[in-house]
């Protein structure tokens, strides 16, 4: 949402710069342009209404009902805040799924970003073979979200999987990690961290933007490597760190596929992989409590919006934008 504020100067600039020289009929042509604008925008507007806005309102209404797919529309029962009350006070599995999701995001996202930044820093110093490394590090981000890879991942951390084979080399007796409620979620975290390539690519591009003169100046002032990292690299990179942090956190909260595959759609073992979206799917599409699922969706939306808002309001204190250079 704050991306908008970043955009608006550019929009304003094009608005003033884009006006052609005064010609006869320029008012007519600008009216024509106004109409054309809406012609070109019409598919998107239709989608905004039909696919986004109306469903959102519908889901808000449903969240106050006990709707299941089977009830005819004229018999839908309005139950007020009951869904929300149940969610917040009596549904234990709901709180469990909140816990699982928050834990997943709190651990996996920072580690993934740290891995991405670390590898980007290593690669940034490299001259040769950067493209090759970058490409192969990026590959997991392309396939890591698929069902096929999740299936392989689960097998890898199962009893006869590659991970236990690796531990065996050191004489350690492994276990079926994916069936252990204490470890199942961790294997999903490792899968998330394995996909560090996408944020890494973005970090790498950010590092290339840091002017070399800053390091030269810092070196002249006697700053060592650590000092340069803390005082030059990190502040200059903070917008990119911020971007990655927001994006990865929002993605982290939405993890679904791997948890579904690991637990065969149940969130098990003992609810240990019951990610929020998986819980929502179970409530909505296997138990058909669509009213309740709608309430869950709205709480999820508000939570995501709040988290994003917190990021943007704290961002002011640590994100450093170099002035006048907005590319």
């Amino acid at each position, binding site marked *: 949402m704050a991306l908008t504020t970043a955009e608006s100067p550019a929009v304003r600039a094009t608005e003033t710069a884009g006006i052609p020289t005064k010609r006869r009929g320029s008012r007519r042509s600008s009216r024509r342009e106004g109409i054309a604008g809406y012609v070109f925008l019409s598919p998107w507007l239709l989608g905004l209404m039909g696919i986004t806005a109306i469903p959102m309102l519908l889901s808000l209404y449903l969240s106050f009902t006990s709707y299941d797919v089977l009830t005819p529309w004229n018999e839908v029962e309005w139950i007020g805040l009951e869904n929300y009350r149940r969610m917040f006070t009596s549904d234990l599995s709901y709180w469990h799924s909140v816990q699982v999701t928050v834990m997943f995001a709190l651990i996996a996202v920072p580690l993934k970003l740290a891995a991405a930044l670390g590898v980007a820093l290593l690669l940034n110093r490299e001259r040769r073979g950067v493209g090759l490394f970058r490409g192969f590090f990026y590959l997991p981000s392309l396939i890591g979200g698929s069902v*096929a890879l999740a299936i392989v991942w689960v097998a890898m951390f199962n009893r006869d999987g590659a991970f236990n084979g690796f531990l065996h080399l050191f004489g350690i007796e492994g276990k079926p990690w994916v069936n252990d409620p204490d470890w199942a979620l961790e294997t999903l975290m490792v899968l998330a961290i394995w996909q560090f390539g996408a944020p890494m690519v973005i970090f790498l591009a950010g590092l290339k933007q840091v002017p070399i003169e800053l390091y030269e100046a810092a070196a002249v002032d006697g700053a060592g490597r650590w000092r340069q990292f803390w005082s*030059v690299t990190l502040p200059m990179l903070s917008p990119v760190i911020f971007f990655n942090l927001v994006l990865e956190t929002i993605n982290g909260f939405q993890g679904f596929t791997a948890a579904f595959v690991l637990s065969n759609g149940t969130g098990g073992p003992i609810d240990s992989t019951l990610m929020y979206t998986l819980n929502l799917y179970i409530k909505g599409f296997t138990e058909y409590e669509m009213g309740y699922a709608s309430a869950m969706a709205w709480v999820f939306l508000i939570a995501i919006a709040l988290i994003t808002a917190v990021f943007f309001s704290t961002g002011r204190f640590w994100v450093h934008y170099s002035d006048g250079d907005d590319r």
Partner: protein
Amino acid sequence: MAHSTVVLRPSPAGRPARLARHGRGLGRVLVLLAILAIVLYPLVWMVGTAFKSPTEIVSNVSVLPKEFTPSNFTEGWRHFDVNFGRFFLNSVMVAGLTVVANATSCLVTAYAFARLRFRLRGFWFAIMIGTLLLPQHVLIVPQFILFKQFDWVGGPWPYLPLIVPQVLATEAFFVFLMVQFMRGIPRELDEAAKIDGASPYGVFWHVIVPLSRPALVTTAIFSFIWTWNEFFRQLVYLSDLEDYTIPVAMTLFIDSTGQSAIGPMFAMSVLSLLPVFLFFLAFQRLLVEGINTAGLKG
């Protein structure tokens, strides 16, 4: 991370310094190679296991099979009542249609935002950016209900709920990517065309469309890969085995937990990831640049 700060221009140092730098460089390459090995290990293991015989899967802990057994592929292909080729075709169709729909609708939308002046443009643009962060899970329940009312779910052509949203440019990421791209196209070209009497439609067709090819290619590739991997919506909307796409069909393997199914399961995993891998090999540079355009130039 102490050793990994950003490179300094080599100071006018003598030989020892250069040697030390060389040593550090070697260490760095070794670290990178070690990370590469960890990153690629699961993939190598996946391919290796896909070629192992059932007995070898249990007994042979090494990554590569002692002898290559292609039978997993033929078995996996025929594992279900419906041939796996059918799932492949279904996935190709959904991904292909999504590519065309996304490329067309997002290009049209982006042109309006990037080039045309009309009332409430800033407002709509802000909303479009807002939908970038809107999780699809939030909308799935009401969308499902709505599409069911239209008889699209499980209807004569069950893919409508998967394709129609793309036709209506709901994939804001690509709209944003193309707006960014179009802002880089010199406005003088539009103006020149306008002076020659071109309407906004003419400018779109004769200037913007031809010059937007790189952005279209990026959109097409990302659309394809993401749709190929997409699972949530396909799981919700596809209910007949014959209509299943690859991701939904793959989940059927999870039910059959017997050891004998592991080989075929891995073989089909490899097959299903192959198109993405080929795309990766062919368009690696474009993919990496696409991430950057969308991510940074804001």
